[in-house]
């Protein structure tokens, strides 16, 4: 009951949050220098052509009128047409998002699973062998993972694994990907997913390590060991659960990083996802796509954090009781 109330409250709060985000996103297009009609008219476009394009796109209507139309259409999942259509499949923003969102969400989900698994594992190992070689290795990895950005890792991975070792393909397999199964696509997804997972894994390693060190120093652990509970059972049955609480929170916040990190990774590896499309849209000033992507990311972020908030009390009853 309490859980249902919490979920309900969170969903209610999501509505004004999304309205605010949509207003800001729509408004930024107005405030940003560089009129869309000017861009579409290009270097040669004269004032008359710019005016015509503005009228054709409806940009000469009042801001609030256009925002209202955008917001009400967005509720129906209709974000209008791209200003740079490239064929029937690439005209309506809804179609463009549908074909690409799944790919990006797939990679983000794989990345977070990978990050959580390795982050927790490394964190546990570091905590158990605190101040010894495994701990130092884990700390080194987590430091590098947090410090080295995606745009450095991407060309580095391409150089090592695709060009020098030739063990992984360099980029997405273009149009044949549609005919390939998920398993066949794994080699093509490996580098982008690993790169996306690196920073979240590093953060989770740190958190898991700290939680593990803290938990293992607790009296009840000492008591359990003294009573003859096997070490492995003690770690996995008692200590691990405490470790997962901060990890779950980190997963929620990392999702936002994964969505934005996909911009660089998808561009470098030519993955036909939302990130690559958004970069293309930003360069061209294709605002219908930019606005739709921002809203979609906002919705995803809100939902993921809602799930995290639901899962946390399950992991730690103390959170449930204090709520």
């Amino acid at each position: 009951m309490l859980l249902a109330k919490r979920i309900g409250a969170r969903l209610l709060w999501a509505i004004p949050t999304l309205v605010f985000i949509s207003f800001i996103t729509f408004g930024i297009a107005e405030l940003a220098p560089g009129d869309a009609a000017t861009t579409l008219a290009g270097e040669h476009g004269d004032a008359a052509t710019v005016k015509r394009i503005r009228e054709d796109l409806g940009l000469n209507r009042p801001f609030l009128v256009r925002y209202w139309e955008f917001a009400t259409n967005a509720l129906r999942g209709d974000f209008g047409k791209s200003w740079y259509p490239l064929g029937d499949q690439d005209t309506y923003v809804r179609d463009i998002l549908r074909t690409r969102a799944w790919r990006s969400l797939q990679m983000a989900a794989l990345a977070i699973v990978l990050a959580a698994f390795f982050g927790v594992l490394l964190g546990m190992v570091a905590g158990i062998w605190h101040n010894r070689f495994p701990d130092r290795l884990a700390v080194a990895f987590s430091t590098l993972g947090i410090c080295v950005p995606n745009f450095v890792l991407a060309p580095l991975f391409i150089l090592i694994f695709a060009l020098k070792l030739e063990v992984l393909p360099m980029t997405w397999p273009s149009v044949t990907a549609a005919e390939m199964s998920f398993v066949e696509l794994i080699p093509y997804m490996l580098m982008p997913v690993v790169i996306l997972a690196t920073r979240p894994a590093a953060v989770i390693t740190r958190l898991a390590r700290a939680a593990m060190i803290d938990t293992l120093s607790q009296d009840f652990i000492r008591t359990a060991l003294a009573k003859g509970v096997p070490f492995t059972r003690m770690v996995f049955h008692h200590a691990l659960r405490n470790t997962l609480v901060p990890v779950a929170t980190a997963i929620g916040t990392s999702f936002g990083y994964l969505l934005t990190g996909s911009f660089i990774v998808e561009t470098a590896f030519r993955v036909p996802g939302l990130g690559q499309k958004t970069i293309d849209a930003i360069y061209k000033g294709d605002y219908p796509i930019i606005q739709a992507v921002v809203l979609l990311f906002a919705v995803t972020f809100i939902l993921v954090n809602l799930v995290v908030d639901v899962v946390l009390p399950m992991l730690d009853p103390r959170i449930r009781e204090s709520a």
Partner: protein
Amino acid sequence: MRFCFAILVVCALTVVGCSKGKYSAGKAGEDHVLVYPMPNNPTKLDPATVEDGDTLEVLTQVYEGLVEYNEHNELVGNLAESWEVSDDGLTYTFHLKKSVKLHSGREMTAEDVKFSWDRAATPSILSPTAEGYMADIVGFDECWSGQAKGLSGVEVVDPYTVRVRIKEPKAYWPMYLQYACYFIVDKDVVGMQPIQSAERMVGTGPFTVEQMVADQQVVLRRFNDYHKGAPKLQKIIRLIAQDPNTRRSLYENGQVHWVQLERQDKQYVDQHPEFKNQMHIVDRPAIWYLGFSVKERAFQDARVRKAFAMAINKDRIIKEGFDGINQRANGIVPPNIPGHNPDFRGLPFDPAAARRLLAEAGYSDPKTFPVMPMYFRADRADARIVAQHVQQDLMQNLGVSIELQPMEWKALLEKRNKGELPFFHLRWHADYLDPQNFLSFMLHSKARENTLGYSNPRFDQLCDTADRMPLTQNEERFRLYQEAERIAVVEDAIWIPIYFQRDIELIRPEITGIRRSLMGPLPHIETDVVFSK
């Protein structure tokens, strides 16, 4: 623990060993299939609306015009076999080639020419280039404003003859016809709305559009009934790769056969000596320059502008910034364009004279000169290189501070169109190979492109006279343009030419037959790629 770690390492090495070489992905490719990248999706599919060079390169494989530039940069007939101009220079009669097939299978006729040009001049197409390149045709204004349907100055005489009347004699007018807005489309397929799908991309070019997958690739297929004979290539695949590092890596990996490097990336070739023999330096008809707006009070005095020009060390910019790849620009008209003056020296690099000029203009203490912003494209590393060098030179050699203002392209374009750039670094790329396109087009006081407020009656008069002279008097015509260039660069210093663009390309040795004009690669009629020899 160490034992487990060791096992992990051995497993990893085993996986690597088994997979090695599996994704070496075509050190050889498929014969007669040319693969090369482009940085973005095609922005437009309609020749009446296209502007950017990358998209244009795709469309020139699909559509054609009545004329084209050949490998010697001469304007020659393409869909037109020949043409005549009346004595008064106002009427052009084009004789079309017979048996030219459209991709739909039908023969192209004069009706298609009339339709294509009327279409480009129709407001519903929203062509950004029509007014710049078609306004000279009689009847354009009425058609463009929607008062008339079609260009009254374009007449179908018979199925293979088109007559065009222009408003005033302009010897260079036929050069406009090689521009995309004059490309011929199939009147039975295309319609009067902008082309937004591959199915409606029907022209007469050597290739048709087989497939267009956004963000992935554009595939062009050989058109076997092409009027100059079927091309040797079966297919052209343009992979979309936004990141320049990715494009380079695709070339290294063998997945693409031809790549253009960023101008500041020559060191990439130096680091990969195996590509030295595959490197080609290609001239472009483009100038990168610094411009002043005389609407800005600080730049109204020509002595200030000249001082700036003489304080900038162009040779150092080219050597340090671009490894000497680009060519120093003394004047405005690039080399290989008829009318280029190879003996023109422009203003010298002379910091002492620069300081004297600045003092004469009232700034004996350079610190009293206002700190001006210098605008340039934020997304271009080559523009930033020049901007940083210019900032350094002006501080060291003149004692003047400028503030670098990188700006996103759309915003920069808007400011430029409004004439709100006091000092900036931009490029101008030729639309056709004539000095008129660099001088009258950009700097005449009445030119649409002149948003600098620049006005010099002598410059205008020279350009007006030269613009009206026939091509048979090119020697005198070019002399007038050269004098106008001297006024703009030396007397008025309204532009500071920095360098003429050269591009670096890597091309696999298996590719043969690439034809080029100064404007870029010509349609790939003779190009072939054979790996299996």
